[in-house]
């Protein structure tokens, strides 16, 4: 910790010394995520959200006349490489980091940020252990598994009327975290799962797991995983003749779900981080976003892009404006932030653990698109 303080103090003096002659020193904003590997579709969304927010801020004159420049670090969706990528951002040095996809990656790389005293706003990882009382520099804007998994358990039992629920989860931090919270809530609701199976993130063939689920004859299947495994599971389940409806949490909130499992994903109900139909501003943003990126080689992926954009525009930028690039002041400003963000009903605020408290959004896949869930 002492070394961390010393490093940030030296960094601060460096910044002040530089600030006197060069008035328009760029603010460096680090973006970390898997822009290759299994998490690509999430990581590209994060990068696009950052690009869009920074472009708008710079076009409007920047932060007190200083432009923001992006430093992008691809962690290849791999926890080990994620540590190296974060180290690179710390060495750069960037002024803060907004990004992060995948619980296993973030749990690994937040350690580097914590030790270096680097303000880090996480947009794409949901394991409850990311925001505890131990993290001082790490904040999170999307809801953690504990809230999402509890909510989807309630919805499954009370609104979808599921009685025979099967669970298939990724054996990583995201999948196991979700499964545990989900099963605990089911138990409180008086329901025992008919099958609980897991898989490894890189698995391609799920016959073994799905055969067991088929034997159990479920009326609902909770999938706690991400793309590309989740849509592969859905496709293979339908091939095996399993007709049960799928439910899940934010891992499924990715437009690739419908691209990779166009028929099988239909009817899936899930908690999500962003839906454009929540309010008119969200709709307007989504239209602008899709317009901006539909020409590029990668199709637009709005879900995490929306959070990256909003975290920069509504939280990071105002704090940079009021606190400058002093890392400790920046951290305190983020920790005390509260306000309204488009797409989030009501007011949002950070709790003591650095988790942004907010109302979550429930959607259903209807005709290949996420739509607000309208069930009973």
């Amino acid at each position, binding site marked *: 910790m002492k070394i961390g303080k010393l490093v940030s103090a030296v960094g601060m003096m460096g910044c002040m010394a530089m600030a006197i002659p060069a008035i328009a020193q760029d603010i460096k904003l680090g973006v970390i995520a898997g822009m290759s590997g*299994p998490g690509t579709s999430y990581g590209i969304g994060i990068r696009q959200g950052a690009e869009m927010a920074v472009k708008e801020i710079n076009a409007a004159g920047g932060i007190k006349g200083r432009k923001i420049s992006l430093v992008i670090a691809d962690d290849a969706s791999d926890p080990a490489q994620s540590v190296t990528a974060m180290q690179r951002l710390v060495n750069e040095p960037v002024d803060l980091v907004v990004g992060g996809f995948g619980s296993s990656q973030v749990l690994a790389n937040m350690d580097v940020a914590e030790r270096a005293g680097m303000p880090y706003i996480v947009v794409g990882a949901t394991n409850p252990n990311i925001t505890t009382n131990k993290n001082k520099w790490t904040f999170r804007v999307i809801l953690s598994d504990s809230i999402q998994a509890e909510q989807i358990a309630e919805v499954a039992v009370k609104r979808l009327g599921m009685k025979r629920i099967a669970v298939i989860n990724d054996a990583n931090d995201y999948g196991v975290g979700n499964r545990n919270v989900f099963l605990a809530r089911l138990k409180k609701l008086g329901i025992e799962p008919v099958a609980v199976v897991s898989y490894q993130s890189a698995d391609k063939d799920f016959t073994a797991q799905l055969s067991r689920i*088929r034997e159990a004859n479920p009326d609902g299947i909770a999938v706690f995983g991400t793309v590309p495994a989740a849509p592969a599971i859905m496709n293979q389940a339908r091939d095996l003749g399993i007709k049960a409806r799928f439910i899940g949490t934010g891992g499924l909130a990715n437009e690739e779900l419908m691209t990779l499992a166009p028929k099988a994903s239909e009817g899936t109900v899930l908690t999500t981080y962003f839906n454009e139909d929540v309010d008119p501003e969200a709709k307007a943003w989504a239209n602008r976003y899709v317009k901006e990126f539909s020409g590029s080689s990668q199709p637009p992926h709005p879900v995490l892009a929306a959070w990256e954009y909003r975290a920069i525009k509504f939280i990071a930028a105002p704090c940079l404006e009021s606190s400058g690039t002093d890392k400790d002041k920046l951290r305190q400003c983020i920790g005390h932030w509260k306000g309204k963000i488009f797409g989030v009903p009501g007011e949002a605020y950070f709790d003591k653990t650095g988790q942004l408290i907010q109302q979550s959004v429930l959607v259903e896949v209807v005709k290949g698109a996420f739509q607000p869930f309208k069930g009973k």
Partner: protein
Amino acid sequence: MFDQLFIGGLATGCIYAVVGLGFTLVYRTLRMVNFAQGQVFMIGAFLGLVTAERAHLPALPLLFVVSAIAFALGMVLERLVFRRLYHSHEVFIVGTIGLGIVLTNVVRVFFPGPVPFPKIFGSHVVQIGTARFQETYVWVVISTLVLVVLLHAMFTYTRAGRALRAVAADAEIAGTVGVNVNRTIALTFGLSFAVAAIAGVLIGPLYFVSFDMGDMVGLKAFSAAVFGGINSIPGTILGGLAIGVLENLAGGYISSAYKDLVAFAILLVMLIWRPTGLLGRDMPVKV
């Protein structure tokens, strides 16, 4: 449930077996292991993807075109890379691991994320007893059988096949009796690339294709080859099928998260019991 696990395992096992054949072919000729074999399988899947999307070929011509391209690629890479590496087994191993990483990352530049593969083998579901599976599974099994028969026929009845066997038995003597050893070795690599690429096209429509798909399959195919006896073609096929079925049964009946562990623990015990593999023979070291 048993039917489903067993048949599913057989199909996956066929893929391990066919990729494993690539290991076996090179090993028989050079007594060396090409660790880029899994990546060649991945390259085959992407060759299939690109060809299918550009040329809209039906399944059989597509398999033929992809294996021909892969064959040529194998010959070219033999000339440029492998020939400079196979003077020592250690160099060859490290060199091929490096080549594998290069191939993976070249594909990663163009296809950073998983891509759906066109359903070239149809998307009907076939039912046998209580087991249901995609038509593609049938293709996988039949193609494996056809490949084995073709390879066997080639080794037994053609001049090139006899040359391969001669070089496998003793390269020096084969050279003195007029076999073009360099060309025969190049042919070996061409063949090993072609079979791995066919496996890539076969598996494409079942799953999505991604640049990292070859890593685990390569490892399992290598295990299949060793398990069955790396110098034996029937052994490799048997090894592939055994691993495919074992891991599926382990996943279904014991633990889905640890299906690899269970399959490989059994494998380890088998290898302690039979170090040369199921059908492998001890190869005397020549002096």
